[in-house]
């Protein structure tokens, strides 16, 4: 990569402004689909934005809510005369710390004083739609992605292109997408305009100026001015095309650990989540929906609830019944008194055994590739269950319909598409709907587009309570049973080893969709590789679950490669390494985790190690789990982890994501399973869907391998290697090869 990376500029010439966009803004294209726009703030100062696919000239007149009076154009950076920089980020905070990292990338390019940077979440308006997600998934920036051309687009890119307007936080994309390809460009462009302003202000050549710590300085004359002082003048400067970005070696802020802005509010109980919303005169509701997918409300006698304390209404929806009351407790007591009858959607006879059978049949029909004659043939079948996201905050939404308008308060991973869902449910235009996004008490995919049943329900109930607002709160039981579950997936694999113990053939047939095939494909160099989907038998609703397809395929592929290693009589690390000649980054990560974990050294009696290596969401992660068996149960003592995410923008937060991902993965490997009986999910609360807690949380040691490669995601990549590393350790310890999750010893 050159000293100064340049974003691609398809059209160097400035756009001719349309009539609507002449004042106060000007606009430049910097790629076919993206623009840099700049303008003057009403009270003085510079506003500059880089927009994605939806940022077009006629959109510059779209004023987001709350922007009146300060001239905010719905773009990404504001510099005010008091020398504050306000960075607007089209992503939400759900604990992953991405807002901080994205703002750091902006401040780095801008040469801003980090202490003077404020972070704001962009409101849900079209103009903030984060079209960069698409771009981050495409290899247009000279970023080498191994065997990219052989692989389809990853899940989020695929989904993103499928949608007209998105404002998603998911796919571990905020930092590597918006941050890398949007915010850096915005910061760099702002810096150039500030330097140009300084040149005019001091009447010196721009080459003699430096920008540093929110100040432009002319060293020769000793003159300097703050960004704030120059901001208004800067807004009249030429908007740069494809501004050069800083080389890594010049970074001052990126790569240093910075505290997150949202944490102080979270330790004193002040952070406001969806469940904390209070709207004047609001009422409360809770709900029970058809337990079986596709079921409808067949009959209901509301009488038992109507006389109960605080009850205001019983609202019947097509597939659910809700009780409206003066508080959650009264609503839930009254709901429990009802005996709604639901239809079974025609699938009331389905149970987990039947689902397993459907998947096995699908794989039988597709057929696993036939291994060539060789020294050793290995075959295996794996299976993972449905999983609930089980965010700590159950689904909650507040809605108010009044005066032809709808307001919704909810925590969602995509406020724009949430607003669209709400508008449709209310039969209103999107312009008549305001969505106030709240902090998320966990997301993990449950609050992504396509999963907004709780918002639709709140809007339906609000029709009945109008003009009063209603806050719909799901019980834990409702939340556990009405997920968009991680799918039930089966995998069958066949491998062949030659006389020297090398893998020469590998066939992997799995149930799942097209978009899973990247995750299903082993990274290892095997000449004869055959990866196919057998289609997807569905029963429960499914959705993206932290690390999406990689959560199951990490387990399938890394378990199977371990089986082949043992069949070949090879050390599992050596066996993997021998097939990574073409993948030096993967090899380096594997090497690092072996070293970190003391792979090959003696362990105390009764303990063993297992290894796994998974690339997902642009990052490569290897883990070694150290396990024992205590009272017949698997105990994970320590997980060692090496990560190549290119650059760790905010190292302490990068670490937090990996630490958390490992615990998330451990919970699912050891405990999690949603089974189906009589067509409906069985598990209803935490005792049956238990979590790792302090007493069984493994120690976690993480090393970042600094490859200097393009920034990778981190919200998800820590999850996939956990289950196979544990399963492989259990095999090493006990000789039992556990091929189903959750892992249960015979």
């Amino acid at each position, binding site marked *: 990569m050159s000293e100064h990376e340049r974003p691609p500029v398809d059209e160097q010439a400035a756009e001719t402004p349309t009539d609507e966009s002449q004042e106060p803004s000007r606009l430049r294209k910097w790629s076919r689909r993206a623009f840099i726009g700049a303008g003057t703030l009403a009270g003085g100062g510079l506003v500059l934005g880089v927009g994605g696919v939806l940022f077009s000239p006629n959109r510059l007149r779209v004023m987001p809510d709350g922007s009146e009076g300060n001239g905010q154009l719905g773009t990404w950076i504001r510099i005010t005369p008091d020398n504050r920089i306000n960075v607007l980020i089209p992503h939400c905070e759900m604990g992953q710390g991405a807002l901080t990292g994205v703002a750091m990338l902006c401040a780095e390019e801008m040469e801003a004083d980090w202490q003077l940077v404020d972070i704001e979440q962009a409101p849900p308006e079209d103009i903030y739609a984060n079209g960069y997600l698409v771009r981050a998934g495409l290899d247009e920036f000279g970023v080498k992605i191994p065997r990219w051309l052989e692989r389809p687009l990853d899940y989020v890119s695929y989904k993103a292109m499928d949608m007209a307007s998105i404002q998603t936080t998911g796919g571990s994309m905020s930092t590597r997408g918006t941050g890398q390809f949007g915010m850096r460009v915005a910061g760099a462009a702002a810096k150039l305009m500030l330097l140009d302003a300084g040149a005019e202000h001091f009447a010196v050549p721009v080459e003699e100026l430096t920008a540093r710590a929110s100040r432009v300085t002319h060293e020769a004359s000793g003159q300097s001015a703050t960004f704030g002082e120059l901001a208004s003048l800067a807004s009249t400067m030429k908007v740069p095309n494809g501004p050069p970005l800083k080389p890594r070696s010049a970074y001052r802020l990126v790569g240093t650990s910075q505290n997150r802005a949202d*944490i102080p509010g979270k330790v*004193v109980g002040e952070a406001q989540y969806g469940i904390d919303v209070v709207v004047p005169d609001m009422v409360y509701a809770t709900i029970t929906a058809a337990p079986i997918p596709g079921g409808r409300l067949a009959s209901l006698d509301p009488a038992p609830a109507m006389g109960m304390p605080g009850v205001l209404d019983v609202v019947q929806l097509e597939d659910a019944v809700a009780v409206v009351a003066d508080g959650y407790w009264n609503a839930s007591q009254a709901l429990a008194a009802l005996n709604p009858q639901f239809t079974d959607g025609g699938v009331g006879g389905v149970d987990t055994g039947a689902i397993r059978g459907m998947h096995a049949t699908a794989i039988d029909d597709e057929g696993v590739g036939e291994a060539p004659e060789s020294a050793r043939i290995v075959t295996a079948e794996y299976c993972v269950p449905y999983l609930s996201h089980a965010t*700590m*905050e159950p689904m909650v939404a507040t809605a108010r319909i009044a005066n032809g308008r709808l307001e919704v308060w909810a925590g969602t991973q995509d406020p724009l598409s949430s607003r669209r869902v709400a508008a449709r449910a209310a039969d209103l235009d999107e312009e008549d709907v305001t969505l106030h996004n709240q902090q998320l008490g966990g997301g993990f995919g449950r609050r992504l587009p396509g999963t907004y049943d709780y918002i639709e329900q709140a809007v339906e109930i609000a029709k009945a309570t109008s003009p009063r607002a209603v806050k719909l709160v799901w019980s834990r039981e409702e939340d556990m049973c009405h997920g968009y579950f991680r799918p039930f997936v089966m995998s069958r694999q066949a491998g062949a080893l030659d006389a020297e113990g090398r893998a020469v053939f590998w066939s992997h047939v799995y149930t799942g969709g097209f978009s899973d095939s990247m995750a299903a494909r082993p990274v290892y160099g095997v000449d004869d590789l055959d990866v196919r989907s057998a289609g997807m038998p569905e029963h429960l609703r499914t959705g993206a679950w932290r690390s999406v397809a990689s959560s199951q395929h990490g387990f399938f592929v890394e378990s199977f490669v371990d089986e082949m290693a043992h069949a070949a009589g090879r050390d599992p690390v050596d066996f993997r390494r021998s097939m990574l000649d073409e993948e030096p980054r993967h090899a380096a990560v594997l090497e690092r985790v072996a070293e970190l974990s003391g792979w090959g050294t003696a362990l105390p009696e009764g303990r063993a190690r297992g290894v796994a290596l998974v690339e997902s969401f642009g990052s490569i992660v290897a883990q070694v789990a150290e396990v024992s068996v205590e009272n017949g149960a698997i105990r994970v003592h320590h997980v060692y982890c090496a990560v190549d995410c290119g650059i760790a923008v905010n190292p*302490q937060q990068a670490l937090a994501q990996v630490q958390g991902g490992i615990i998330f993965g451990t919970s699912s490997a050891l405990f999690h399973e949603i089974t189906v009986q009589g067509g409906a999910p069985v598990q209803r609360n935490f005792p049956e869907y238990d979590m790792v807690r*302090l007493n069984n949380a493994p120690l976690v040691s993480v090393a970042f391998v600094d490859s200097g490669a393009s920034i990778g995601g981190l919200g998800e990549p820590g999850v996939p290697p956990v289950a196979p590393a544990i399963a492989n350790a259990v095999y090493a310890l006990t000789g039992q090869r556990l091929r189903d999750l959750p892992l249960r010893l015979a």
Partner: protein
Amino acid sequence: MAIEFTLNGTLTSLEVDPAMPLLWAIREQTGLTGTKFGCGIGACGACTVHVDGTPVRSCSTPVESVAGREVTTIEGLAQNGELHPVQRAWIEHQVPQCGYCQSGMIMAVAAALEQNPRATDEDLQAAVTNICRCGTYQRIREAVQSITATTEASSV
């Protein structure tokens, strides 16, 4: 009949169903929303508050059972405008992620340390059984160790 108790140092009187869980009385009647609803059956600890200094799961504690007692929520943990040592350590170690469980977690840890200021990891995990779905346990341990280490140092 009104139920009276002290909430974060203030005498509070609520006209509610005596069987209503303390959680909902606090959240919806007094407007203090820092205490969170997680499971409703006392399994996750997101709703942990102190009653006379003892940690209780407020989602399964009838409000009538705290009549005449002292209830402290996350909003009342800081004293005289100063954060509690656990809250300070939580910021220093950047413990919370989504943060939803952390009110309850902090209350549970604060009570455990009140009970045993030199709590080891083992003491801590016996006393604190709360769920954090984001998986912040490692930082919880480190933050608590930083507090107990200070306690050790100051008592030498």
